[in-house]
């Protein structure tokens, strides 16, 4: 058994063990911490499966941002609701499995066991080479001015998918911001400072480095691993860092500039599509001479849009000061 194979065996086993431990942990805090560890192990798995772009995005988003969001939500629901009688359901440490009776659980387990068997069997007996788009895509990449295959697929061959995906991101961000705006009890100005001196010093040193890495990934993305998604993920992580250290909080306020940034990713694709339509070809079917500059322009806008959207999503979910008086809540909800 080669060292690589041994590593893969341990990692595959570790993913299942850590994943199951996170799902069925005795307390929610344990569950979230194990979930973050699971995200980091996933990033390793992506590297082993020759997907470095995904590994970069996963490390920043899967482990970092999602973990931070879960921890914040846990902090919100774990505290006793102010002025209300704590109910049994607000106990964060309740037994992991309780929603369905035992019989239903057994049936569910049996059904899902069959699903696992079918999925595993299908994956193991998949024909090689499999009928798919790999050959077509790689042939197109070979003659494309952009040489990173993932970037070509994302921004040219399957640009429609990415366009609509940016729309999904925009809608999720708007939903989060709208719900957050309605939940505000007190003006932001009197929010307690979250930062500590350590965090402040760390953020002031790390954030410039993160911006540098994001810029590099964006530029490298046309030729090798990188591109708008990993770069945007790291930009978003830098924004989260600033939030945590409480630096420049007012800049993240709901301003016109930030709203434009939220929609700019979708707008960039729309603009490129309309330009290609005006040039006489299909929507998002760029003219050959314009392919490289168009993709580069979309990548730059996309990086900024994804980064700012992710940071805003975190900012909207970051811990709020809670009003101590429930009647005040009611008043503020209906001014």
């Amino acid at each position, binding site marked *: 058994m080669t060292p690589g194979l041994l590593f*893969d*065996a341990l990692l*595959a086993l570790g*993913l*299942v063990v850590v*994943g199951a431990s*996170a*799902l069925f942990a005795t307390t929610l805090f344990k569950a979230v911490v194990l*979930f973050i560890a*699971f995200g980091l192990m996933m990033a390793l798995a992506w590297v*082993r*499966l020759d*997907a470095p772009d*995904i590994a970069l995005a996963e490390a920043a*988003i*899967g482990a970092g*941002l*999602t973990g931070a*969001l*879960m921890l914040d*939500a846990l902090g919100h*629901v774990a505290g006793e*609701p102010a002025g209300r009688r*704590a*109910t*049994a359901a607000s106990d*964060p440490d*309740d037994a*992991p*499995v309780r929603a369905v009776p035992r019989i239903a*659980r057994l049936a569910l*387990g049996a059904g*899902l066991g069959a699903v*696992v068997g079918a999925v*595993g069997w299908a*994956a*193991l007996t*998949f024909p*090689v*080479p*499999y009928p798919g*788009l*790999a050959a077509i*895509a790689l042939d197109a990449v070979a003659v494309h001015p952009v040489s990173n295959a*993932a970037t070509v*697929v*994302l921004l040219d061959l*399957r640009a429609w998918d*990415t366009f609509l995906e940016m729309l*999904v*991101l925009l809608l*999720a*961000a708007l*939903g*989060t911001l709208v*719900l957050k705006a309605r*939940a505000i009890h007190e003006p932001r100005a009197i929010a307690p400072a979250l930062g500590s001196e350590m965090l402040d010093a760390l953020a002031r040193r790390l954030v410039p480095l993160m911006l540098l890495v994001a810029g590099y990934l964006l530029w490298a993305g046309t030729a090798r691993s990188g591109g708008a*998604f990993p770069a945007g993920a790291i930009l978003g992580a830098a924004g989260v860092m600033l939030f945590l250290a409480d630096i420049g909080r007012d800049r993240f306020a709901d301003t016109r500039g930030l709203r434009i940034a939220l929609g700019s990713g979708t707008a960039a694709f729309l603009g490129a599509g309309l330009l290609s339509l005006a040039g006489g070809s299909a929507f998002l079917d760029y003219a050959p001479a314009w392919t490289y500059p168009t993709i580069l322009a979309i990548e730059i806008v996309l990086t900024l849009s994804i980064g700012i959207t992710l940071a805003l*999503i975190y900012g909207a*979910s970051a811990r709020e000061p809670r009003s101590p008086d429930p009647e005040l809540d009611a008043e503020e909800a209906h001014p």
Partner: protein
Amino acid sequence: MSGAEMSIAMYSVAAAALIGLASFAAFAMRHLLRRILALNMLGSAVFLLLVAVARRAEGPAPDPVPHAMVLTGIVVAVSATAFALILARRLYDATGACSLDAEADGR
């Protein structure tokens, strides 16, 4: 079976197992944060399966199409998770409970 094929097979089996475990948790758990975490992990398991299958493509490089799907999928997953979490928090603010189980909330 070559070493690379064995590695891919192991990741595929791990992905299948995680799909089952995470689906079970998403259905059987009561606390909403646990269910959201389980759904997120279910997404990760599907991504792992997609990329493991993409690695089976013959040729010098893995199939870039599933890679691109997973890359966008990760960003969609985190934004959907953020939306779900803020919905759960609003539910908690409104009812003091963090589950969809009406009886357990005492109302």
